[in-house]
């Protein structure tokens, strides 16, 4: 473990150098006049991706922030993001880690659109693995299968704009960003 603990000294933050040109806009934000809230039950047996995307798409929701309120998964994969040895970016996702039959303690997932227009789910969560260890990381939503009980999710919709993934030139990584022009079904 690479962590240190010195209560007397707060280490100075590090400024990392990314491969691309610095973007002077540091906070890219948009707002809606109000959010809609939806309580969603993730259906047992579906992937986390399908259980989130399908019912929300049917309701015309394509951009949203969600809180996964905890529950069991029959199978769960996650990854972490150590430094990128290729130097193309400062970090890169590592190999998928199989957590087995795992309990998601808390998760947040953002729903948006991929570069090609299809749905994208970006999810981070704290989990308890099949071995009992509590871990955290980037969840692979298409490789996680909802367990035998439905899992509750609180959805906050983003209706007046849309979240789309685009290559971020500064970090050289595709990222979700807010864009004008909501999608209408």
């Amino acid at each position, binding site marked *: 473990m690479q962590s240190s603990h010195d209560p007397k000294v707060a280490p100075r*933050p590090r400024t990392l150098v990314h491969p691309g040109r610095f973007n002077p806009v540091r906070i890219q934000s948009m707002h809606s006049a109000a959010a809609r809230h939806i309580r969603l039950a993730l259906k047992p047996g579906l992937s986390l991706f399908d259980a989130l995307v399908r019912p929300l798409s049917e309701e015309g929701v394509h951009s949203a922030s969600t809180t996964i309120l905890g529950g069991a998964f029959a199978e769960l994969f996650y990854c972490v993001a150590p430094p990128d040895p290729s130097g193309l970016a400062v970090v890169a996702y590592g190999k998928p880690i199989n957590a087995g039959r795992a309990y998601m303690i808390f998760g947040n997932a953002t729903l948006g659109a991929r570069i090609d227009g299809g749905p994208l789910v970006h999810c981070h969560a704290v989990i308890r693995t099949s071995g009992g260890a509590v871990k*955290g990381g980037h969840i692979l939503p298409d490789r996680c299968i909802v367990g035998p009980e439905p899992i509750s999710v609180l959805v906050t919709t983003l209706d007046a704009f849309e979240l789309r993934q685009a290559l971020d030139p500064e*970090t050289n990584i595709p990222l979700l960003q807010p864009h004008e022009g909501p999608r209408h079904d």
Partner: protein
Amino acid sequence: MTKNCVVEMGSMGRVAYARIAPNEDLVVGVEKLCLAEGFSNAFVRGALGSLVDGCIGTWDGGVKHVKGPAVEVVSLAGEVRKRSDGSLKASLTGVIADPEGNVFGGPFVAGLNPVCVTFEVTLEEWLPDA
């Protein structure tokens, strides 16, 4: 400014989503998001992203430093409040995971949690009743 009371009635107003860029501080960045959107008080409705290194407060007034990159934010709750002097203060607490997936939790220390690649945050404006 809002009164310091136990029960504060109010309602939800606007909802804002932001992508906070690398090397910006998580806590101050959330405060600046409120400046950008004109929110005086807000609750975090969703947040995820990565930090260069993580820094959370401890009981003794010190800090727990978790070395990255990247340290993933895997749980976050919090609010932004307008203080009596008119300034904005974000209070954020959560769980972070180091590059091996090991988890640590506590309050994020303002100024010491620089964003690594991106930080996505959704705030819902809180409008206290007058």
